[in-house]
Protein backbone atom coordinates (compact mmCIF):
# COMPACT_ATOMS: atom_id res chain seq x y z
CA UNK A 1 0.00 0.00 0.00
CA UNK A 2 1.34 3.41 -0.92
CA UNK A 3 2.10 5.98 1.73
CA UNK A 4 -0.94 7.95 2.86
CA UNK A 5 -1.25 11.59 1.86
CA UNK A 6 -0.50 13.87 4.80
CA UNK A 7 -2.93 16.30 6.35
CA UNK A 8 -2.52 19.85 5.10
CA UNK A 9 0.17 21.88 6.84
CA UNK A 10 -0.47 25.62 7.18
CA UNK A 11 2.14 27.99 5.81
CA UNK A 12 2.68 30.88 8.25
CA UNK A 13 2.41 34.29 6.60
CA UNK A 14 3.43 37.75 7.84
CA UNK A 15 0.27 38.26 9.88
CA UNK A 16 0.14 34.78 11.40
CA UNK A 17 3.86 34.22 12.11
CA UNK A 18 3.57 35.15 15.84
CA UNK A 19 0.63 32.74 16.21
CA UNK A 20 2.60 29.83 14.75
CA UNK A 21 5.81 30.83 16.56
CA UNK A 22 3.85 30.77 19.82
CA UNK A 23 2.41 27.35 19.02
CA UNK A 24 5.97 26.04 18.47
CA UNK A 25 6.73 27.22 22.02
CA UNK A 26 3.48 25.60 23.28
CA UNK A 27 1.80 28.93 23.85
CA UNK A 28 -1.54 30.12 22.45
CA UNK A 29 -0.73 33.59 21.12
CA UNK A 30 -3.66 35.85 20.34
CA UNK A 31 -4.12 39.50 19.55
CA UNK A 32 -5.04 41.88 22.35
CA UNK A 33 -6.00 45.54 21.84
CA UNK A 34 -4.04 48.00 23.94
CA UNK A 35 -6.71 50.68 23.35
CA UNK A 36 -9.89 48.88 24.40
CA UNK A 37 -8.60 45.77 26.12
CA UNK A 38 -10.46 43.20 24.02
CA UNK A 39 -8.98 40.06 22.50
CA UNK A 40 -9.70 39.10 18.92
CA UNK A 41 -9.59 36.05 16.69
CA UNK A 42 -9.12 35.26 13.85
CA UNK A 43 -6.12 37.42 13.10
CA UNK A 44 -6.62 40.98 11.98
CA UNK A 45 -4.65 44.13 11.25
CA UNK A 46 -7.00 46.29 13.29
CA UNK A 47 -9.14 45.79 16.37
CA UNK A 48 -12.66 44.76 15.30
CA UNK A 49 -14.11 46.27 18.47
CA UNK A 50 -12.66 49.82 18.47
CA UNK A 51 -11.17 49.89 14.93
CA UNK A 52 -7.79 51.13 16.15
CA UNK A 53 -4.59 49.57 14.76
CA UNK A 54 -3.44 48.80 18.28
CA UNK A 55 -3.32 45.01 18.42
CA UNK A 56 -0.40 43.35 20.15
CA UNK A 57 0.40 39.69 20.61
CA UNK A 58 -0.14 38.19 24.04
CA UNK A 59 -0.16 34.68 25.41
CA UNK A 60 -3.73 33.63 26.16
CA UNK A 61 -4.60 31.26 28.98
CA UNK A 62 -5.33 28.47 26.52
CA UNK A 63 -8.36 27.58 28.62
CA UNK A 64 -11.94 27.56 27.49
CA UNK A 65 -15.29 25.81 27.23
CA UNK A 66 -16.69 23.65 24.44
CA UNK A 67 -19.38 25.80 22.73
CA UNK A 68 -20.40 23.32 20.05
CA UNK A 69 -18.93 20.65 17.80
CA UNK A 70 -19.56 18.41 14.84
CA UNK A 71 -18.31 14.97 13.94
CA UNK A 72 -17.29 15.35 10.32
CA UNK A 73 -17.71 12.28 8.14
CA UNK A 74 -16.58 13.62 4.76
CA UNK A 75 -12.96 13.15 3.70
CA UNK A 76 -12.79 16.38 1.75
CA UNK A 77 -8.98 16.26 1.68
CA UNK A 78 -7.12 12.97 1.12
CA UNK A 79 -5.02 13.64 4.22
CA UNK A 80 -8.11 13.10 6.34
CA UNK A 81 -9.29 9.94 4.58
CA UNK A 82 -7.89 7.67 7.30
CA UNK A 83 -9.18 9.92 10.06
CA UNK A 84 -12.92 10.24 9.39
CA UNK A 85 -15.03 10.68 11.34
CA UNK A 86 -13.22 13.38 13.32
CA UNK A 87 -14.41 16.32 15.35
CA UNK A 88 -14.38 20.03 14.55
CA UNK A 89 -15.28 22.19 17.52
CA UNK A 90 -15.84 25.77 18.57
CA UNK A 91 -14.20 26.64 21.87
CA UNK A 92 -15.16 29.72 23.88
CA UNK A 93 -11.83 30.88 25.28
CA UNK A 94 -11.79 32.52 28.69
CA UNK A 95 -10.51 35.67 26.94
CA UNK A 96 -13.89 36.10 25.20
CA UNK A 97 -13.09 34.86 21.71
CA UNK A 98 -14.48 31.78 20.00
CA UNK A 99 -11.93 29.60 18.24
CA UNK A 100 -12.50 26.69 15.89
CA UNK A 101 -10.16 23.72 16.34
CA UNK A 102 -10.13 19.98 17.04
CA UNK A 103 -10.57 18.44 20.47
CA UNK A 104 -7.91 15.79 21.06
CA UNK A 105 -7.48 13.16 23.74
CA UNK A 106 -11.15 12.26 24.05
CA UNK A 107 -13.47 9.94 22.17
CA UNK A 108 -15.90 11.79 19.94
CA UNK A 109 -18.72 10.06 21.86
CA UNK A 110 -17.53 11.70 25.07
CA UNK A 111 -17.58 15.28 23.81
CA UNK A 112 -19.99 17.41 25.84
CA UNK A 113 -20.93 21.03 25.25
CA UNK A 114 -19.78 22.98 28.27
CA UNK A 115 -16.81 20.76 29.08
CA UNK A 116 -13.67 22.59 30.14
CA UNK A 117 -10.76 22.40 27.72
CA UNK A 118 -7.13 23.47 27.57
CA UNK A 119 -4.82 24.04 24.65
CA UNK A 120 -2.40 21.35 23.55
CA UNK A 121 0.01 21.66 20.64
CA UNK A 122 0.54 19.25 17.79
CA UNK A 123 2.58 19.29 14.62
CA UNK A 124 0.93 18.25 11.35
CA UNK A 125 4.44 18.32 9.77
CA UNK A 126 7.14 20.60 8.37
CA UNK A 127 7.98 21.85 11.89
CA UNK A 128 4.71 23.76 12.05
CA UNK A 129 2.68 23.45 15.26
CA UNK A 130 -1.02 24.16 15.74
CA UNK A 131 -3.12 24.43 18.87
CA UNK A 132 -5.76 21.83 19.58
CA UNK A 133 -7.74 21.38 22.78
CA UNK A 134 -8.06 18.55 25.28
CA UNK A 135 -10.15 18.04 28.41
CA UNK A 136 -8.70 20.28 31.12
CA UNK A 137 -6.78 18.57 33.88
CA UNK A 138 -8.30 18.67 37.36
Amino acid sequence: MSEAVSKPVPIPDALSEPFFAGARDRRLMLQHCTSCGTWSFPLRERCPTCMKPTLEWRAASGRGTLYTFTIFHQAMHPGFAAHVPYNVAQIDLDEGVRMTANVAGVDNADLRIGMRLEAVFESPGDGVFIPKFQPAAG
Partner: protein
Amino acid sequence: MPNRSKGAIVGLGVTPMGKIYGRRSVDFAAEAIALALDDAGLEKRDLDGLLINANISGDMDPRSQMILGFENLTLINVMSAYGSTAGSMMQYACMAIEQGLANVVALVYADAPLTANRSAGQSYAGPHRFPLGGMVGLRAAYGNFGANPEYAMAARRHMHLYGTTSEHFGTIAVGQRAWAGMSPWAQMRSPITLEDHHNSRFIADPLRLLDCCLVSNGAVCVIVTSAAKARDLKQPPVHVLGYAQCAPGDNLRTDRHPAVETGAKRSGEIAFRMAGVTVKDVDTCQLYDCYTYTVLVTLEDYGFCKKGEGGPFVADGKLGPGGSLPTNTGGGQLSGYYMWAFTPLSEAVVQARGQGGERQVPKNDVVLVSANGGILNFHSTIILSKHASSS
Protein backbone atom coordinates in the same frame (compact mmCIF):
# COMPACT_ATOMS: atom_id res chain seq x y z
CA MET B 1 -55.00 45.81 3.80
CA PRO B 2 -51.33 45.60 2.89
CA ASN B 3 -49.28 48.68 2.04
CA ARG B 4 -48.54 49.92 -1.47
CA SER B 5 -46.51 48.05 -4.06
CA LYS B 6 -42.79 48.84 -4.09
CA GLY B 7 -42.34 47.03 -7.38
CA ALA B 8 -43.93 44.16 -9.26
CA ILE B 9 -42.50 40.84 -10.36
CA VAL B 10 -43.75 40.24 -13.90
CA GLY B 11 -41.43 37.59 -15.31
CA LEU B 12 -39.94 34.32 -14.11
CA GLY B 13 -37.47 32.10 -15.92
CA VAL B 14 -36.18 28.80 -14.54
CA THR B 15 -33.82 26.67 -16.65
CA PRO B 16 -33.50 22.90 -16.35
CA MET B 17 -31.64 22.20 -13.11
CA GLY B 18 -29.02 19.81 -11.86
CA LYS B 19 -26.47 17.60 -13.59
CA ILE B 20 -26.47 19.44 -16.89
CA TYR B 21 -22.85 19.45 -17.90
CA GLY B 22 -20.77 21.41 -20.36
CA ARG B 23 -22.53 24.76 -20.20
CA ARG B 24 -21.15 27.98 -18.71
CA SER B 25 -23.00 29.93 -16.03
CA VAL B 26 -23.55 32.84 -18.43
CA ASP B 27 -25.29 30.55 -20.92
CA PHE B 28 -27.69 29.36 -18.24
CA ALA B 29 -28.21 33.06 -17.37
CA ALA B 30 -29.08 33.89 -20.97
CA GLU B 31 -31.60 31.07 -21.11
CA ALA B 32 -33.25 32.13 -17.83
CA ILE B 33 -33.48 35.78 -18.92
CA ALA B 34 -35.00 34.78 -22.26
CA LEU B 35 -37.53 32.56 -20.48
CA ALA B 36 -38.42 35.35 -18.06
CA LEU B 37 -38.86 37.94 -20.83
CA ASP B 38 -41.11 35.55 -22.71
CA ASP B 39 -43.05 34.78 -19.53
CA ALA B 40 -43.59 38.51 -18.99
CA GLY B 41 -44.44 39.26 -22.61
CA LEU B 42 -41.51 41.65 -22.83
CA GLU B 43 -38.86 42.15 -25.49
CA LYS B 44 -35.15 42.13 -24.89
CA ARG B 45 -35.00 45.84 -25.71
CA ASP B 46 -37.47 46.60 -22.90
CA LEU B 47 -34.90 45.60 -20.34
CA ASP B 48 -32.83 48.49 -18.98
CA GLY B 49 -31.57 47.04 -15.70
CA LEU B 50 -29.50 43.94 -14.99
CA LEU B 51 -28.55 42.81 -11.50
CA ILE B 52 -26.34 39.74 -11.41
CA ASN B 53 -25.87 37.65 -8.31
CA ALA B 54 -22.15 36.93 -7.86
CA ASN B 55 -22.22 33.13 -7.83
CA ILE B 56 -20.22 30.52 -5.93
CA SER B 57 -18.07 29.64 -8.93
CA GLY B 58 -17.13 33.32 -9.31
CA ASP B 59 -17.64 33.40 -13.07
CA MET B 60 -20.45 35.95 -13.40
CA ASP B 61 -19.09 39.46 -13.80
CA PRO B 62 -20.29 42.80 -15.24
CA ARG B 63 -19.09 41.82 -18.73
CA SER B 64 -22.02 39.43 -18.79
CA GLN B 65 -23.94 42.44 -20.10
CA MET B 66 -21.94 42.23 -23.33
CA ILE B 67 -21.97 38.45 -23.51
CA LEU B 68 -25.75 38.54 -23.12
CA GLY B 69 -25.97 41.34 -25.71
CA PHE B 70 -27.76 44.00 -23.69
CA GLU B 71 -27.30 47.64 -24.65
CA ASN B 72 -27.73 50.99 -22.90
CA LEU B 73 -28.59 49.55 -19.52
CA THR B 74 -29.14 52.28 -16.95
CA LEU B 75 -28.73 49.90 -14.02
CA ILE B 76 -26.02 47.23 -13.89
CA ASN B 77 -24.24 45.54 -11.02
CA VAL B 78 -22.87 42.26 -9.78
CA MET B 79 -24.02 41.96 -6.20
CA SER B 80 -23.02 39.78 -3.31
CA ALA B 81 -24.20 39.19 0.18
CA TYR B 82 -23.66 35.48 -0.55
CA GLY B 83 -26.80 33.37 -0.28
CA SER B 84 -28.86 36.34 0.90
CA THR B 85 -28.21 38.41 -2.24
CA ALA B 86 -31.60 37.94 -3.90
CA GLY B 87 -33.19 40.09 -1.19
CA SER B 88 -30.57 42.80 -1.63
CA MET B 89 -31.09 42.70 -5.39
CA MET B 90 -34.86 43.02 -5.01
CA GLN B 91 -34.35 45.96 -2.68
CA TYR B 92 -32.05 47.76 -5.15
CA ALA B 93 -34.28 46.97 -8.13
CA CYS B 94 -37.38 48.36 -6.42
CA MET B 95 -35.55 51.49 -5.25
CA ALA B 96 -34.13 52.12 -8.73
CA ILE B 97 -37.55 51.68 -10.33
CA GLU B 98 -39.19 53.99 -7.79
CA GLN B 99 -36.50 56.61 -8.47
CA GLY B 100 -37.01 56.34 -12.21
CA LEU B 101 -33.49 55.05 -12.79
CA ALA B 102 -34.67 51.91 -14.55
CA ASN B 103 -38.00 50.59 -15.79
CA VAL B 104 -37.53 46.87 -16.28
CA VAL B 105 -34.87 45.11 -14.24
CA ALA B 106 -33.73 41.49 -14.59
CA LEU B 107 -32.38 39.79 -11.47
CA VAL B 108 -30.40 36.68 -12.30
CA TYR B 109 -28.56 33.88 -10.53
CA ALA B 110 -26.63 31.39 -12.62
CA ASP B 111 -24.03 28.82 -11.65
CA ALA B 112 -22.53 25.65 -13.06
CA PRO B 113 -20.27 24.12 -10.39
CA LEU B 114 -21.06 20.50 -11.28
CA THR B 115 -18.75 18.72 -13.70
CA ALA B 116 -19.06 15.16 -14.92
CA ASN B 117 -16.22 13.63 -12.90
CA ARG B 118 -16.49 15.37 -9.53
CA SER B 119 -18.88 14.66 -6.64
CA ALA B 120 -21.43 17.28 -5.63
CA GLY B 121 -19.75 17.64 -2.24
CA GLN B 122 -16.43 18.38 -3.87
CA SER B 123 -17.93 21.00 -6.17
CA TYR B 124 -17.84 23.78 -3.62
CA ALA B 125 -15.13 22.67 -1.20
CA GLY B 126 -12.91 20.17 -2.98
CA PRO B 127 -9.10 20.02 -2.75
CA HIS B 128 -8.80 22.54 -5.57
CA ARG B 129 -10.02 25.04 -2.98
CA PHE B 130 -7.34 24.45 -0.34
CA PRO B 131 -4.91 27.33 0.00
CA LEU B 132 -2.61 26.85 2.98
CA GLY B 133 -1.45 30.37 3.91
CA GLY B 134 -1.93 31.61 7.44
CA MET B 135 -5.31 31.24 9.10
CA VAL B 136 -6.87 29.73 5.98
CA GLY B 137 -4.27 26.99 6.25
CA LEU B 138 -5.06 26.60 9.93
CA ARG B 139 -8.70 25.90 9.06
CA ALA B 140 -7.56 23.24 6.58
CA ALA B 141 -5.23 21.73 9.19
CA TYR B 142 -8.26 21.14 11.40
CA GLY B 143 -10.10 19.52 8.51
CA ASN B 144 -12.75 22.22 8.62
CA PHE B 145 -13.84 22.31 4.99
CA GLY B 146 -16.81 24.05 3.44
CA ALA B 147 -20.08 25.01 5.07
CA ASN B 148 -21.19 21.57 6.28
CA PRO B 149 -19.22 21.51 9.57
CA GLU B 150 -20.15 25.12 10.34
CA TYR B 151 -23.90 24.57 9.97
CA ALA B 152 -23.61 21.28 11.82
CA MET B 153 -22.05 23.12 14.75
CA ALA B 154 -24.85 25.70 14.67
CA ALA B 155 -27.46 22.92 14.62
CA ARG B 156 -25.83 21.10 17.53
CA ARG B 157 -25.76 24.27 19.58
CA HIS B 158 -29.49 24.67 19.01
CA MET B 159 -30.10 21.02 19.94
CA HIS B 160 -28.09 21.50 23.13
CA LEU B 161 -29.90 24.67 24.19
CA TYR B 162 -33.46 23.71 23.27
CA GLY B 163 -33.72 19.95 22.94
CA THR B 164 -34.18 20.08 19.18
CA THR B 165 -33.79 16.62 17.63
CA SER B 166 -32.69 15.04 14.38
CA GLU B 167 -36.33 13.90 13.96
CA HIS B 168 -37.37 17.56 13.90
CA PHE B 169 -34.90 18.15 11.08
CA GLY B 170 -36.12 14.99 9.39
CA THR B 171 -39.72 16.20 9.44
CA ILE B 172 -38.63 19.26 7.44
CA ALA B 173 -36.77 17.12 4.90
CA VAL B 174 -39.69 14.71 4.47
CA GLY B 175 -42.20 17.53 4.01
CA GLN B 176 -40.10 19.29 1.42
CA ARG B 177 -39.53 16.09 -0.53
CA ALA B 178 -43.29 15.55 -0.65
CA TRP B 179 -43.65 19.05 -2.12
CA ALA B 180 -40.85 18.35 -4.61
CA GLY B 181 -42.76 15.38 -5.92
CA MET B 182 -45.31 17.85 -7.26
CA SER B 183 -42.81 20.22 -8.91
CA PRO B 184 -41.66 19.59 -12.47
CA TRP B 185 -38.52 21.63 -11.73
CA ALA B 186 -37.37 19.60 -8.71
CA GLN B 187 -34.25 17.45 -8.93
CA MET B 188 -35.25 14.96 -6.20
CA ARG B 189 -38.83 13.82 -6.50
CA SER B 190 -39.08 10.32 -4.98
CA PRO B 191 -40.81 10.42 -1.59
CA ILE B 192 -38.76 9.85 1.56
CA THR B 193 -39.74 8.86 5.09
CA LEU B 194 -38.41 9.84 8.50
CA GLU B 195 -36.72 6.46 8.52
CA ASP B 196 -34.97 7.26 5.23
CA HIS B 197 -33.77 10.48 6.82
CA HIS B 198 -32.54 8.63 9.90
CA ASN B 199 -30.77 6.04 7.75
CA SER B 200 -29.07 8.56 5.47
CA ARG B 201 -25.36 8.81 6.13
CA PHE B 202 -23.88 11.48 8.33
CA ILE B 203 -22.25 14.34 6.50
CA ALA B 204 -21.38 16.38 9.56
CA ASP B 205 -23.07 14.95 12.63
CA PRO B 206 -25.77 16.00 13.60
CA LEU B 207 -26.49 16.74 9.91
CA ARG B 208 -27.19 13.79 7.62
CA LEU B 209 -27.20 13.66 3.84
CA LEU B 210 -30.94 14.39 3.77
CA ASP B 211 -30.41 17.50 5.91
CA CYS B 212 -28.19 19.07 3.24
CA CYS B 213 -29.05 21.00 0.10
CA LEU B 214 -28.38 19.90 -3.44
CA VAL B 215 -25.80 21.29 -5.83
CA SER B 216 -27.25 22.50 -9.12
CA ASN B 217 -26.20 23.77 -12.50
CA GLY B 218 -28.78 26.16 -13.86
CA ALA B 219 -30.17 29.68 -13.62
CA VAL B 220 -33.18 31.63 -12.42
CA CYS B 221 -34.25 35.07 -13.62
CA VAL B 222 -36.91 37.30 -12.10
CA ILE B 223 -38.04 40.48 -13.87
CA VAL B 224 -39.21 43.45 -11.84
CA THR B 225 -40.98 46.61 -13.00
CA SER B 226 -43.39 49.20 -11.57
CA ALA B 227 -46.91 48.26 -10.48
CA ALA B 228 -48.22 50.64 -13.14
CA LYS B 229 -46.34 49.00 -16.00
CA ALA B 230 -47.16 45.54 -14.63
CA ARG B 231 -50.86 46.08 -15.30
CA ASP B 232 -50.34 45.82 -19.07
CA LEU B 233 -48.23 42.66 -19.04
CA LYS B 234 -48.98 39.00 -19.55
CA GLN B 235 -48.78 37.64 -16.01
CA PRO B 236 -50.70 38.53 -12.87
CA PRO B 237 -48.33 40.92 -11.06
CA VAL B 238 -46.69 39.83 -7.83
CA HIS B 239 -46.19 42.92 -5.72
CA VAL B 240 -43.17 43.46 -3.54
CA LEU B 241 -44.63 44.85 -0.33
CA GLY B 242 -41.57 44.77 1.90
CA TYR B 243 -37.86 44.08 1.81
CA ALA B 244 -35.03 44.32 4.31
CA GLN B 245 -31.59 43.06 5.15
CA CYS B 246 -29.83 42.27 8.39
CA ALA B 247 -26.27 41.05 8.57
CA PRO B 248 -25.74 39.94 12.16
CA GLY B 249 -21.98 39.53 11.65
CA ASP B 250 -19.66 36.81 12.84
CA ASN B 251 -19.99 34.42 15.73
CA LEU B 252 -16.40 34.63 16.88
CA ARG B 253 -16.97 36.45 20.15
CA THR B 254 -18.30 34.52 23.08
CA ASP B 255 -21.05 37.07 23.74
CA ARG B 256 -22.51 36.62 20.23
CA HIS B 257 -24.76 33.79 19.02
CA PRO B 258 -25.89 34.35 15.41
CA ALA B 259 -25.78 30.58 14.87
CA VAL B 260 -28.95 30.29 16.95
CA GLU B 261 -30.30 33.86 16.68
CA THR B 262 -30.18 34.88 13.03
CA GLY B 263 -30.68 38.06 11.00
CA ALA B 264 -34.18 36.83 10.12
CA LYS B 265 -35.40 38.57 13.27
CA ARG B 266 -34.31 42.11 12.45
CA SER B 267 -34.78 41.92 8.69
CA GLY B 268 -38.21 40.38 9.25
CA GLU B 269 -39.30 43.17 11.61
CA ILE B 270 -38.33 45.83 9.07
CA ALA B 271 -39.84 44.04 6.07
CA PHE B 272 -43.14 43.22 7.79
CA ARG B 273 -43.50 46.84 8.94
CA MET B 274 -42.84 48.08 5.41
CA ALA B 275 -45.38 45.61 4.03
CA GLY B 276 -48.10 46.48 6.52
CA VAL B 277 -48.69 42.84 7.37
CA THR B 278 -47.64 40.60 10.25
CA VAL B 279 -46.27 37.13 10.57
CA LYS B 280 -49.83 35.93 11.28
CA ASP B 281 -50.86 37.04 7.77
CA VAL B 282 -48.29 34.80 6.04
CA ASP B 283 -49.97 32.06 3.99
CA THR B 284 -46.87 30.31 2.71
CA CYS B 285 -43.17 30.52 3.52
CA GLN B 286 -40.38 30.12 1.02
CA LEU B 287 -37.34 29.92 3.29
CA TYR B 288 -33.68 29.55 2.50
CA ASP B 289 -32.88 25.94 3.33
CA CYS B 290 -29.23 25.19 2.75
CA TYR B 291 -29.87 22.77 5.62
CA THR B 292 -33.01 21.61 7.40
CA TYR B 293 -31.74 23.45 10.46
CA THR B 294 -31.80 26.78 8.61
CA VAL B 295 -35.56 26.43 8.08
CA LEU B 296 -36.17 25.68 11.74
CA VAL B 297 -34.12 28.56 13.14
CA THR B 298 -35.50 31.00 10.55
CA LEU B 299 -39.11 30.19 11.53
CA GLU B 300 -38.23 30.99 15.13
CA ASP B 301 -36.53 34.26 14.30
CA TYR B 302 -39.42 35.50 12.17
CA GLY B 303 -41.66 34.83 15.16
CA PHE B 304 -43.79 31.91 13.90
CA CYS B 305 -42.98 30.35 17.26
CA LYS B 306 -40.87 31.25 20.27
CA LYS B 307 -37.09 30.97 20.25
CA GLY B 308 -36.18 27.37 20.90
CA GLU B 309 -39.61 25.97 19.99
CA GLY B 310 -38.89 25.44 16.29
CA GLY B 311 -38.55 21.67 16.76
CA PRO B 312 -41.96 21.07 18.34
CA PHE B 313 -43.44 23.67 15.95
CA VAL B 314 -42.50 21.70 12.83
CA ALA B 315 -43.00 18.25 14.38
CA ASP B 316 -46.66 17.89 13.33
CA GLY B 317 -45.74 18.24 9.66
CA LYS B 318 -47.42 21.62 9.26
CA LEU B 319 -44.81 22.68 6.69
CA GLY B 320 -45.63 19.84 4.30
CA PRO B 321 -48.50 19.29 1.85
CA GLY B 322 -51.85 19.72 3.60
CA GLY B 323 -50.22 21.42 6.59
CA SER B 324 -51.22 24.74 8.13
CA LEU B 325 -48.03 26.56 7.08
CA PRO B 326 -47.03 25.26 3.63
CA THR B 327 -43.31 25.91 3.33
CA ASN B 328 -40.79 25.44 0.54
CA THR B 329 -43.49 24.15 -1.72
CA GLY B 330 -41.17 23.54 -4.66
CA GLY B 331 -38.98 21.26 -2.56
CA GLY B 332 -36.59 24.07 -1.66
CA GLN B 333 -32.85 23.69 -1.94
CA LEU B 334 -33.04 20.33 -0.19
CA SER B 335 -35.08 18.61 -2.89
CA GLY B 336 -35.79 21.17 -5.62
CA TYR B 337 -32.72 23.01 -6.82
CA TYR B 338 -29.94 25.06 -5.27
CA MET B 339 -29.86 28.54 -6.76
CA TRP B 340 -29.08 30.40 -3.55
CA ALA B 341 -32.09 32.57 -2.61
CA PHE B 342 -33.47 32.40 -6.13
CA THR B 343 -34.79 29.00 -5.07
CA PRO B 344 -37.26 30.41 -2.52
CA LEU B 345 -37.87 33.54 -4.61
CA SER B 346 -38.81 31.60 -7.75
CA GLU B 347 -41.26 29.36 -5.91
CA ALA B 348 -42.75 32.39 -4.15
CA VAL B 349 -43.59 33.92 -7.54
CA VAL B 350 -45.27 30.69 -8.67
CA GLN B 351 -47.36 30.49 -5.49
CA ALA B 352 -48.29 34.19 -5.37
CA ARG B 353 -49.51 33.98 -8.98
CA GLY B 354 -51.52 30.86 -8.20
CA GLN B 355 -49.68 28.84 -10.84
CA GLY B 356 -48.48 26.01 -8.61
CA GLY B 357 -50.79 23.42 -10.17
CA GLU B 358 -50.86 20.30 -8.04
CA ARG B 359 -48.72 21.97 -5.38
CA GLN B 360 -50.58 25.30 -5.32
CA VAL B 361 -51.28 26.36 -1.72
CA PRO B 362 -54.96 27.02 -0.95
CA LYS B 363 -54.40 30.58 0.28
CA ASN B 364 -51.70 32.74 -1.28
CA ASP B 365 -52.33 36.35 -0.24
CA VAL B 366 -49.03 36.86 1.60
CA VAL B 367 -45.85 35.01 0.72
CA LEU B 368 -42.70 35.28 2.83
CA VAL B 369 -39.29 34.81 1.21
CA SER B 370 -36.14 34.51 3.27
CA ALA B 371 -32.54 34.45 2.17
CA ASN B 372 -29.48 33.54 4.20
CA GLY B 373 -25.82 33.80 3.43
CA GLY B 374 -22.43 32.86 4.82
CA ILE B 375 -22.66 30.85 8.00
CA LEU B 376 -25.86 32.61 9.07
CA ASN B 377 -23.93 35.91 8.76
CA PHE B 378 -26.24 37.60 6.23
CA HIS B 379 -29.99 37.66 5.92
CA SER B 380 -32.64 39.29 3.74
CA THR B 381 -36.41 39.16 3.65
CA ILE B 382 -38.93 39.83 0.88
CA ILE B 383 -42.70 39.96 1.36
CA LEU B 384 -44.80 39.34 -1.76
CA SER B 385 -48.50 39.54 -2.50
CA LYS B 386 -50.92 39.58 -5.39
CA HIS B 387 -52.55 42.51 -3.56
CA ALA B 388 -51.32 46.01 -2.83
CA SER B 389 -53.05 49.18 -1.77
CA SER B 390 -53.40 51.84 -4.44
CA SER B 391 -51.90 54.71 -2.46
